[in-house]
């Protein structure tokens, strides 16, 4: 036995220390490697891969005649990924060499490269490169490793300011957009998203799946190899019900109008499909494609004309409201259609005299002539006979005070004027109010799309459809994602003879009355002009119309509003005519073909008749 004069148990204690430490380490390893393996594997994967994302082409937007309204075109971006560590002098030199062909700011480039180096992440140095500098850049690519050119798809709107309120625009994400999408793998910080209109509503369908180059990088962000290059998947294409020619006619007409402000809404009365939807002023969505925010592109002090006149502008309807009054007086049974009233040019309401727009007076007027000439006095008397409540009831039936239901944000509902709302406000209803109501003045307000719905209802016999503009959405692999459906919202039940009389009256408005500027050879146009008095300035010009060709049911109903256009007949009717002509071009040419000589009398013989005037 060795006696070492040493307490042996101390060795055991040190041993226990080692043993305990080893056990502790193993427990920790179980925690790390067995339980936490997936978590740490993910971090390791994120560590080593970097993605240079390539934006997928957004889905295209087509009109019903397959003209691309929004499309994508290839665009080249210059990217830099930090390579083997370089000296500052080398970076400066590279930035200087690159700045020459790019025509960009040397300081910006240099800063971009430094940012890439310090973050160890690839950056886009320049976007949307013109093709002519590609060659010189390709040469530089060989000299400076780390710079590369990638192709991406960039949004392009071939017509510029065209259907802009419906299509909307895309732009870089702001903080709120990013907060919503930061979890989404398909979005990067510099991705573009739809900010308004269709681009916003159908962002998910239009987006597609971004492609990307997956790079394996080391701890300094240096590229070690390309893992894979993932091809993008383009977004789904949207086919609109909008007809490109009719839309072009509408945009053109509004642009050429006196004020350049207004709206055109054309519907298919059979379904509620929108054929044209123009709202002026519009904007060119192309200007947002590259920018970060609206502030970058608009001159100081100017704001984006996002106000959508067609659905957000409420205007007094003026004489186009006489269609509703007509329905009311004929349905009330208190006025016979062939009953005549004498129009001396004014109407004495006792304490006040209400004028007709024609100071000379229309003399004897029955219903058809009254509507055709828009005789105010006829409607004063007939409206009074029918009663204000009846007119109010029919204005509700024609969906005043209710949004049309189109899938666009912030639609206005217009305003119903009548004894009902007055009673709600605990105020009085005067006889003058009845007279004003009958001719569409007073407090009645209508949006252009409501006017379009009204005239479409006349065309189709009282059916109100929900206006829709997306015909179908087709995925890039051909799968149909969505098909627009016609939806009946409500129906106005009028007697057949009432419809017939109103239509006859509207037909004579165009054939011999105030709306002769809308006359089209080969088609029957039923329309109504309107001039809405406007305390702020010149009168607003209205024209609502629908057209039939032969015995076919009406295929188009259109409402035109020109702000401060003064006369519906001169300012609004020609636009409606152009839109209808464009929309019905195939029917018209088919009809015109057999007798080519017949198109000789299109221009109105008389200068446009003065527009009807409301009560003063």
């Amino acid at each position, binding site marked *: *036995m*060795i006696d070492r004069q040493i307490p042996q148990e101390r060795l055991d204690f040190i*041993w226990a220390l*080692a043993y305990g430490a080893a056990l502790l380490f193993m427990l920790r*390893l179980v925690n790390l490697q067995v339980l936490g393996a997936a978590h740490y594997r993910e971090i*390791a994967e994120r560590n080593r891969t970097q993605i240079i994302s390539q934006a997928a082409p957004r889905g295209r937007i087509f009109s019903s005649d397959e003209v691309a309204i929004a499309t994508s075109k290839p665009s080249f971006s210059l990217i830099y990924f930090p390579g083997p560590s370089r000296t500052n002098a080398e970076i400066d030199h590279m930035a200087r060499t690159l700045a020459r062909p790019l025509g960009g700011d040397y300081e910006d480039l240099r800063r971009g490269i430094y940012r890439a180096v310090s973050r160890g992440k690839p950056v886009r140095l320049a976007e949307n490169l013109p093709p002519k500098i590609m060659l010189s850049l390709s040469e530089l690519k060989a000299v400076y490793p780390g710079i590369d050119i990638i192709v991406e798809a960039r949004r392009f709107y071939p017509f510029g300011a065209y259907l802009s309120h419906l299509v909307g625009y895309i732009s870089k994400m702001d903080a709120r957009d990013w907060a919503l999408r930061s979890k989404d793998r398909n979005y990067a910080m510099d991705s573009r998203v739809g900010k308004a209109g269709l681009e916003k509503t159908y962002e998910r369908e239009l987006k597609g799946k971004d492609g990307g180059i997956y790079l394996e990088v080391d*701890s300094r962000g240096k590229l070690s190899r390309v893992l894979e290059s993932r091809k993008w998947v383009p977004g789904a294409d949207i086919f609109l019900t909008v007809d490109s020619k009719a839309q072009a006619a509408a945009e053109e007409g509004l642009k050429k109008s006196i004020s350049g402000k207004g709206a055109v809404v054309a519907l298919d009365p059979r379904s509620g499909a929108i054929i044209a939807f123009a709202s002026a002023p519009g904007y060119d969505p192309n200007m947002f494609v590259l920018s970060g925010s609206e502030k970058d592109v608009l001159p100081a002090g100017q704001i984006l004309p996002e106000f959508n006149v067609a659905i957000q502008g409420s205007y007094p309807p003026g004489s186009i409201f006489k269609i509703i009054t007509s329905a009311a007086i004929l349905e009330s049974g208190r006025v016979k259609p062939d009953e005549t009233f004498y129009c001396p040019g004014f109407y004495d309401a006792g304490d006040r005299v209400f004028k007709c727009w024609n100071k000379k007076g229309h003399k004897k007027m029955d219903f058809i002539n009254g509507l055709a000439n828009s005789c105010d006095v006829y409607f004063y008397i007939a409206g009074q006979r029918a009663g204000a409540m009846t007119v109010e009831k029919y204005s509700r039936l024609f969906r005043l005070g209710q949004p049309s239901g189109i899938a666009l944000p912030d639609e206005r509902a217009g305003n119903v004027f009548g004894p009902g709302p007055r009673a709600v406000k605990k105020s009085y209803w005067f006889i003058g109010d009845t007279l004003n109501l009958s001719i569409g003045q007073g407090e009645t307000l209508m949006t252009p799309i409501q006017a379009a719905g009204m005239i479409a209802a006349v065309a189709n016999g009282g059916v109100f459809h929900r206006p829709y503009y997306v015909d179908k959405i087709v995925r890039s692999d051909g799968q149909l994602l969505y098909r627009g459906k016609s939806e009946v919202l409500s129906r106005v039940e009028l007697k057949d003879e009432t419809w017939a009389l109103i239509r006859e009256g509207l037909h004579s408005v165009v054939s011999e009355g105030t709306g002769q500027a809308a006359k089209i050879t080969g088609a029957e146009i039923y329309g109504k002009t309107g001039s809405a008095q406007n305390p702020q300035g010149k009168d607003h010009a209205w024209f609502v119309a629908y057209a039939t060709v032969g015995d076919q049911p009406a295929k188009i109903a259109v409402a035109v509003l020109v702000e401060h256009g003064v006369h519906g007949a001169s300012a609004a009717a020609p636009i409606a005519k152009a839109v209808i002509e464009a929309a019905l071009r195939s029917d018209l040419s088919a009809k015109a073909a057999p007798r080519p000589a017949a198109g000789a009398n299109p221009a109105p013989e008389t200068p446009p008749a003065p527009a009807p005037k409301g009560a003063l």
Partner: protein
Amino acid sequence: MIFPPQAGLKKTRMDWALFLSMIILLALGTSAVFSSVAELPQQARIVRVQLLAIPMGLLAFGAAWSLNYQIYQDQWKYVYGALLVMLAGVLVFGVVDKGSRSWYRLPFFSVQPSEFARVGLILVLANYLDKRIGKIKELQTVLGAFGLCVPVFVLLIKQPDFSAILLTFPVAILMLYSAGASLFHLSIILGYGFISAVFPGLWALISLNPELMDNSLVYYFFHLSDSVLNASVFIAIIAIGAWVLWRLSCKFYTGVPGLYFAGVALVLILGFFSGVLVKKQMKEYQQKRLEVFLSPETDPRGAGYNLLQARVAIGSGGVLGRGIFSGTQSRLGFLPERHTDFIVAVVGEEMGFWGMLLVIGLYVLMLRRLMQGARLARDRFGYLVNCGIFSMLIVYFCINLGMLLGFVPVAGVPLPLLSYGGSNLVATMAAIGIAESVYARRYTLV
């Protein structure tokens, strides 16, 4: 009986379990080193050095094994002298790498003498403790043992090589402990070592965070070493404070020996002086190194980053590992110091949980065999030598793995046999060779 009776019946000359676990760890380490340096620019040099170090290590192991270990006891003065000359020489002839003048540049490789000095010091301490075993309970013995260590520490601080001190100090403590030194004396020494490390450490910390100096006490503390007046005021405060405390405690308890208070005060004052000495001795770059050591956040990516990356590497290995030569964390350089201090993380990433179990298991087996070797040693010197080597490996094992797994603050400590480092490898294998020599000449019943 302190060992199973059959243990000594088979008289083998080699502890095969120890030898084999050493060889397997070496093989694991070498593959991990090769894998981790595959993408490094200095790959060729590292591979060459590793391939050179293995045969040299085996040679050292064989030589140490065949040589009777008792010769180190006889010739302890030469051993001690050689290690001091080695350490002093490196201050003159050595080259600076990473802020420390710790390497001799030789034609094909560099030698780090502190690695060998640590083994030499174990031998010298073992001899000293063996001689003084009768007076092991006396303070002089403990102080004498540290007297042997102090020149080594001073030379190490001169380099400066803080991690070498960090490793050597606990080894000395553990050796004294296993030799049976009084726990009170050991705690005094521990306190002294702690305080002499705390003073320069605190000063460096304060200079790193100047806003702390708004506090006047901190300001005063920071300028303690600037003038003799300040220092003497500080010493006087400690001395008087200790005396007052002693008198106070005498009021409440009877027979409180003043020695304890005097001892504490003395330790504080001595620690302060050695702290001042350390601070005054340090050059600019050494100060920098201490700062990085204390506050790794000054490193731009931070120690937190390094530790996280090490944890990610180990965790991502999972149970089976990602395959040898396939770890992305290590190969792409996310893992810092991957071929040296963080080599175990490479093993963890590439060989997974089983690989880690193997490493820990082999280490524990090796430690176990070293302990058994100590038990079986022919004489007390052999016992103490084995205890020293045993302690050295325990300290390495605990600090390295503890740091990697987040139990211990970051310190640049390698894991012998696995980490890259020629001097460390050769020195460790020589130490195990010495332990084998003790085993080969063990006490047997037959």
